[in-house]
């Protein structure tokens, strides 16, 4: 109806096409659609995908372990238990690793399960579960710092470089190249040897110091590809401002890359910190970390006997599960952000139906033909 109506008559809105369509809607209808678009549909997409469900559940478990765990489970200390107990000692059923007790809850006595060294102990009598749990909060601080830092710097630099082109791109690309060129671990080894960082925030920053460049480069090349697409050219021809085009056309397309790169950076920090603790290059005297556990298990003959296998395997499992949770979660988010995948998995109501219909037959045709 209103192709002629000038965009400027909606000063609060930053978009081009969609502001026109929204003009006929009431306020509540608009809110409902926004909620549907930004909340209901993503949740539906996540819930429809088994991997994202697993990832979210695992991540929730780790968050629980990090925030509630240290309050519930005793702090590990040397000699708190017999040395080198196996996991579930005495057998899974009828063993001595659990005791039936009762606790007083608001004046009522309820039966309770008391755990004693559920996953066994190490050679100095520290509980394995206790160490794993108490290492989690530090790990979270570290990867959260790294994730924030990398995402903020990586996306802004990458998008700016790819979008503005010319001299800005040249300067930024040079900076990106140089930062990327610095080899990860050797630089970390040197920095760690010189700085000996103890605070998890500092450690997170140091370990992700150059991960942002990888993200910036990926984003830049994506933006370069997107910039030459017809819809961006159309938006440019309409005279939309650069920030508007970036926000409306470019960002949704690069979101999957942002998520994946952020998770990769976090994974890198987990691997690097555990690796450096494993090598014994970080100051670890009063720090609980999965890498420290690995290092102690490795250097105390855990490789040669089966008695200490749990000491080696439990921290390994923690590392693998946490990074798996992050990757699965990022993949779920990928489905939320990627318009092509999203269109197939969740039909949203109202306005976005228009987007859904043309996409659906196209992608389906592709996937069936691909099977031939």
């Amino acid at each position, binding site marked *: 109806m209103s192709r002629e109506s000038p965009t400027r008559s909606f000063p609060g809105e930053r978009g081009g096409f969609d502001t026109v369509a929204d003009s006929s809607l009431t306020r509540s209808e608009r809110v409902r659609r926004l909620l549907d678009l930004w909340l209901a549909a993503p949740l539906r997409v996540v819930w429809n995908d*088994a*991997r994202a469900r697993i990832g979210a559940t695992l991540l929730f478990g780790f968050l629980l372990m990090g925030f509630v765990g240290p309050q519930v489970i005793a702090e590990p200390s040397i000699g708190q238990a017999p040395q080198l107990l196996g996991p579930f000692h005495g057998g899974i059923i009828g063993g001595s690793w659990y005791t039936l007790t009762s606790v007083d809850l608001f004046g009522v006595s309820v039966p309770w399960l008391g755990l004693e060294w559920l996953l066994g102990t190490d050679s100095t009598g520290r509980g394995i579960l206790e160490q794993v749990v108490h290492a989690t909060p530090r790990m979270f601080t570290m990867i959260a710092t790294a994730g924030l830092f990398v995402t903020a710097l990586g996306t802004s630099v990458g998008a700016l470089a790819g979008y503005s*082109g*010319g001299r800005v*791109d*040249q300067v930024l690309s*040079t900076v990106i*190249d*140089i930062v*990327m*060129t*610095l*080899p*990860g*671990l*050797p*630089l970390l*080894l*040197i*920095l*760690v*040897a*010189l*700085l000996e960082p103890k605070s998890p925030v500092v450690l997170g920053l140091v370990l992700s110091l150059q991960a942002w460049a990888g993200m910036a*480069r990926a984003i830049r*090349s994506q933006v*370069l*590809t997107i*910039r*030459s697409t017809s819809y961006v050219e159309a938006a440019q021809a309409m005279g939309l401002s650069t920030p508007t085009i970036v926000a409306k056309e470019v960002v949704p397309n690069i979101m*999957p890359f942002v998520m994946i790169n952020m998770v990769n950076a976090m*994974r890198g920090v*987990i*691997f690097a910190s555990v*690796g450096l603790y*494993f*090598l*014994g*290059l970080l100051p670890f005297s009063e720090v609980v970390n999965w890498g420290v556990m690995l290092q102690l298990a*490795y250097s105390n003959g855990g*490789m*040669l006997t089966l008695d200490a296998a749990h000491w*080696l395997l439990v921290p*390994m499992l923690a*590392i*693998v599960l946490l*990074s798996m949770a992050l*990757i*699965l979660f990022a*993949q779920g988010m*990928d489905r939320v952000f990627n318009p*092509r*995948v999203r269109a197939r998995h969740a039909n949203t109501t109202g306005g976005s139906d228009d987007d859904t219909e043309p996409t659906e037959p196209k*992608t389906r045709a*592709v*996937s069936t*033909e*691909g*099977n*031939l």
Partner: protein
Amino acid sequence: MNGYFVKRTLQAVFTTFVVVSLSFGLVRLMPGNPADQLRGQLIRNNPSLSQQEINRRVANYINVDLSAPLHEQYIDYVLGILQGDLGQSISQNAPVTEVLGEALPWTVFAFSIAILLMFVVGISLGSIMAYWEGSRFDVGSTGLGIVLNSTPNYVTGLLFLYVFGFILGWFPTSGHISSEVVPIVNPLKPVATFQFVADAVYHASLLIGAVVITGFGGVALAMRGNSIQVLGEDYLRVARLRGLSDTRIALRYVARNAILPMYTGLLLAFGGVIGGSAILEQVFTYPGLGYYIVAAVEARDYPLMMGGFILITLAVVVGAFIADLTYGLVDPRVSTGGDSA
């Protein structure tokens, strides 16, 4: 294109310059920097030496003459590196270039095989997964890929070493060749050369296995993502409408466009993996570049540490340089995008 070539070359030179300056900054200007630490070490170990003698030894070890003004120290340091002089290793008691020169071929050998295998397996698996998106095969391999990709290679390395090295005894647990094998590469002596190469591969196989197992999942997932994106493009529909054969579409349209973004990744992976080799080489006691860098950090052998850093960094600069020069050739989209700006 020529302009781009020149520009990129200048950029590579500039990068090298920045890297060398950075390493000088690390050596000289950081709190607790190697130069001061080394000086402290020398004074502690030989309290009778004169100030001048100490300075002379520091200069010998890391090319930094502490008595000269800072800018002269810097120029001397850069000139020294340009002449291939990386100083003298304290713990190995040999020139750094010699120590690293012996270690480098082993790292390059093992990790080149590993990375190539990793990419071949990952790309093939990823494209099949993309074509069968949503199938049981896709879900299964994605799950497997995620689990493997979530495992640091040193963890897999430790498990391999534990199972195949110590328990089953199938593979050697340390070193890069057996002591009785003569290292020889000579086309005139094919049998001896073959024996040597086979033995080297045998010794590196657990390490290669650990890299491939933990790496191919990531490559496959990236390839899958790229391919799915390409499969949704309009030009693919057009290609089908033109009646092009499936093989041609799969190879020329999907595979080419999906692999291109990973091309830079391949060359950079060499730098990244070799840089990250330190922990893995430590696990397998494989005397490569990373092994010596970790050993240097443990022994606070600053010359060797900085030398390893500079060597790896320059290798990656060259890798990135080649990647960028050739990327414009293989992917026309980038060069046109750059020109129209």
